[in-house]
């Protein structure tokens, strides 16, 4: 049965969704650009693999938090551009605040705050 069960760690999944939604607040981006942006802005710490990125995007599409459209990329190639929707922004806000709470709590437990 599916090897993909590996990626089903809820924390990981939820966090990747969060990162993608946050990235898309910058504007419409294609998948590669999203991965690049996450990698760059985390100084290469967070490498998003294709195998996680596209399933995550598909999930967000299914939930209606992002929409996708084929457009011409700057390199004159057709690429699929993802855009965050209003309900996606709302979800991002909720997820961020719950993330803050969790991060704060973990920090407290670890004695860092």
């Amino acid at each position, binding site marked *: *049965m599916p090897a993909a069960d590996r990626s089903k760690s809820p924390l990981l999944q939820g966090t990747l969704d969060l990162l993608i939604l946050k990235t898309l607040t910058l504007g419409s981006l294609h*998948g590669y650009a999203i991965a690049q942006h996450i990698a760059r802005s985390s100084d290469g710490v967070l490498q998003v693999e294709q195998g996680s990125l596209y399933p995550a995007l598909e999930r967000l599409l299914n939930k209606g938090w992002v929409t996708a459209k*084929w457009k011409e990329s700057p390199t004159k190639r057709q690429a*699929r551009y993802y855009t965050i*929707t209003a309900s996606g922004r709302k979800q991002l806000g909720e997820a961020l605040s719950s993330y803050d709470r969790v991060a704060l709590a973990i920090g407290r437990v670890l004695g860092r705050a």
Partner: protein
Amino acid sequence: MSHLDGLRHRLAVLLHPRRYAREMEAEQRFHLELEAMQQRQAGVEADDAELTARRTYGSVMYYGEEVRRMTVLRFIDALTQDLRYALRTLHRNPGFALVSVLTLALGIGATTAVFSMVNTLLLRPLPVSHPEQLVLVNEQRVGAASWWLGQEQVPYDRFLAYREGTREIFSGLSAQRQVSFSLRFGNEPATAVTGAIVSGNYFDVLGLRPAVGRFFSADDEPAVVLSHRLWQSRFSGDRGVVGQTIYLNSRPYVIAGVAPGGFRGTTALATHELWVPARSAPLGEHAGFMRDWVAPFGRLRPGVSLEHAAAVVNAVAMRVPPGEPQSRVRGARVEPMTPVPARAGRSIARDLEMFLTAAILVLLIAGANVAGMLLARASARRREIAVRLAIGAGRWRLVRQLLTESVLLFLLGGAGGVLLTLWLSRIFAAWGPALPDGAVLDLTPDLRVLGFALALAAVTGMLFALVPAVRASSAEVAPTLKDGAERGSGRTRGRSVFVSAQLALAVVLLVAAGLCVRTLRSALAVDPGLDPDDVVVAAIDLAPNGYDEVRGRAFYRSLLERVRALPGVESAGIAQLVLLSGMSDGNDIESAEVGPSGRTRTNAWYDVVDPDFFRTLRIPLVAGRALTDADVAGHAPVIVVNQELARQLWPGESPLGKHVRTFGRDWEVVGMTRDGKYANVTDNAVPPFMFLSFAQRYSASMTLHVRSRLPASQVIHEIRAQVRALDPNVAVGAEPLTDVIGTTLLQQRFAAWLIGVFGLVGMLLAAIGIYGVLAYYVAQRTREFGIRLALGARGGDVLRLVMRRGALLIAIGTAVGLGAAAATTRVLRGLLYGIGPLDPVTFVVAPLVLVAVALVACWLPARRATRTDPIIALRAE
């Protein structure tokens, strides 16, 4: 809106899976190319770069698959896979598939056929505009009356009075009279068609638009509108026929137009092929009882309630004189115009409920059969299933797979059932009981019927496949894989339960069928007080042809002479009413003598007959004499009465020589007949009855009764020839008297026919079920039987062994079935005649028949067991 966006995405994926896969791949390639480009910029060689990229991130396909898993596609994929697998499995076992599908087709077909009757009669609305606004005007009449499909007909003048008096409530009041026409077009031979003479506003009130041409207009020369079907079948749908002339009963009519397709009259029972306005086909010119009487119906104006309409109609009914001296009107009602008249509808609904129950029993037996086979197959597939479990298939996934297989089977069975329904409709039309007035039951399935069959197939599929599927998927992996061999008679326990249940259901069905068939037989075996065999009746009406009494009498006299002279004719008589045809007519009668309790009077049914009538129908006299040729006009009027009439007027005395007053004059009683049946053979009460002499009471409309051993068709042909020779314009409606009686037993015939067929099918399926179980049992024990036989057991011993097992199942099933039948046949009571719901003959014979058939079904595999060759049986392991 997030739901909408998400939904739209899922739908796009679902509806365009190919495009979606293509896009997915393009997207992945794009990603990889950018990846490679970046690597190149970082100084890696082009080929290596791509390779690295691929190595790092895996193959495009893998991600494609991965993404796809996330979507609805996952479900669809699995379903497609299941279906494909299921089809392959069925294909590999064509015998099993065929038997299962046929079995299910029988069950689902039976149920669907009955449902399509329900649909046609009770559910499907009339194909007219706003049928809910249409109502029948139904008079309540006492005395002379004429019914058409549960509606009281009224004289045409009376209909006109209703039309005048109800303008405020009806936007239109129309009327119809069903008539049989002889249709001739060009040089083709004439054919008989059923149609209606209608008021000119008929199609306007129904709100129909002609498919071709137009309907009736005010200044028409004699016009006719054809049904779409007749137009197609007789005139090959040629638009050019509009304006051409056809001949109806030898009179010319111009074809005005064609009614819309699907419209065949205002009830589901009668199918009319053409319509003629009363203006151009004067009522009263066609043959029949109360010829100018019509059935009125109207369209309520918007906002008029049924109660208000009823009050207005009733007021008109009470105000206008009955228009017929021998009847009184008690009032009139309005009833919603349904495909089947409400009065008939209730009893039809009750009967259909019963038929549906019987059909569902057949379906249950069929389903149990297939479930049994699935169980057997589940055992046979234990190894395959154990292997799949061992390599990691989930049990739920396996159950789903097995369910898909079964539901597919049931759906195929459903498709077969629909085909069977189509075929059954045809069989029913050809062989089923004839409906009165040439009515036809149109059982063509529509979308509702198809949906019903589909739902039925899916639901029964789930129901009957669940147990086998769960059973199969719960196989123990290790032991199954280890020895692989079939073990355990415990595996047949499930099937044994199914088979016993089947046999029990079959017993219930057979008992019900037996009761219905015996009801019909006892109704047919009733001594009606006359002998209807070998008698042909031919209705003749001279009124439309302008005969007066003198010419009329002369006509009947010469007709009787000619017919009596025909070779093969034993005797011939005439009567106004046909006994046992469901019709009756009554009149008050009063004893002329003042008895101890004063004058006595009663209402007696009557018929007007000639002297030979008694001999022709073999009506026995118990006292006095029959009418004779001497009892003619001018002589003392005489009548013959039945025992009941004598009992009521002169209890304990001989009626002979008594005088009575009826029809406004005095009559002398000269004879007495034995009590018999008069309107219907199933009537239980005996009415007082009197026979008047035709010679002393003329009627223009009489029915010829001819007794002959010749085939009825030949007799009818001869009668027609004789009537034509006397006057070619006189119409004759002839049929065997037994057919006339048969029509009055329609309900009993229907029940005997349908439930009888269901009973046979149920029995057959149950026999197949028990055969399957025992055949499986024998196959499993081939080795054991081989050893037994090798050790010296005789064939008889093995036979007994197998038969004992079968006999046990049969005994249990029959016992349970008898109990269930005894508890449930009460619901048939309204239908039964001459026997009770616990009729001992049926309760003995029906199970015996089933036991005999089931024993034969057991004997076949048992005999095979005795022929086991020990060597082969032992080597097979």
